[in-house]
């Protein structure tokens, strides 16, 4: 501590250690918080096609098009340890060939500071809803779920599943639009 450099070194290292302790404190204050919020999903239109699928082993697969409404108030999820939320809408169903299928249809990143109240109408799915075969036609029960991933400033990234679900049957024939 005799020279300026020695004092500067000591001061800087102490400040960094204190900053690390504060960051840990920030993590501890939000580690056990429940990040679930109710969300409202409503499907307005479903259309089914049977198209050439070049990514699969068979010639033609089912392709679904969904138009949906989404509303949720995400304000309680944001706190001082949340940087952004990664939302995604996934469809879950079972077919004769596979007992469990999960397909992500749409996603969105909500940064802190942006409007946390979601009120989206007539959204089209962002990603292709391909089935592994022809299992979507006349499927009785396809469940749409909105989930999200919380990206924190410090700590683990919790994956909050299933806050609001809606189940719907798919049309029986191709190229027909079913409205709800």
């Amino acid at each position: 501590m005799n020279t300026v450099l020695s004092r500067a070194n000591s001061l800087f290292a102490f400040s960094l250690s204190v900053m690390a302790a504060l960051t840990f404190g920030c993590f501890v204050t939000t580690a056990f918080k429940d990040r679930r919020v109710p969300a409202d999903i409503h499907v307005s239109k479903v259309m089914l096609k049977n198209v050439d699928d070049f990514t699969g082993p068979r010639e033609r697969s089912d392709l679904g098009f969904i138009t949906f409404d989404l509303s949720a108030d995400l304000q309680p999820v944001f706190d001082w340890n949340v940087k952004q939320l990664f939302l995604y809408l996934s469809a879950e169903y079972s077919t004769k060939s596979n007992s469990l299928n999960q397909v992500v249809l749409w996603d969105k990143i909500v940064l802190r500071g942006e409007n946390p109240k979601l009120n989206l109408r007539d959204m089209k799915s962002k990603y292709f809803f391909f089935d592994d075969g022809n299992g979507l036609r006349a499927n009785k029960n396809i469940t749409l779920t909105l989930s999200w991933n919380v990206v924190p400033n410090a700590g683990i990234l919790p994956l909050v599943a299933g806050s609001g679900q809606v189940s719907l049957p798919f049309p029986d024939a191709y190229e027909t639009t079913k409205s709800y």
Partner: protein
Amino acid sequence: MPTKLDYKGQKLAEQIFQGIILISAVIGFVYGLIIEQFGWTVYIVLVGFAVSCVLTLPPWPMYRKNPLSWQPVIPETSGESSQKPQETLKKKKHK
């Protein structure tokens, strides 16, 4: 111009910057918790760091209040008498 601190001054400088950083850390943590933004916690700690830099890095006179009191310089005659035993030692070694 003297730029080194004495021992009591070094201890005082260390206590000062540790105290300032810790106080700014507590204030920053509470303020960030209240307004729900961790960025402000970081800003307040950085302000504390800057204040500590100004207060402890330059060699202010308050850190040089207790200089070490060295013994007075011994005059030359006793210096000659201390050289003679060394010379006799050297002669003995040459044998």
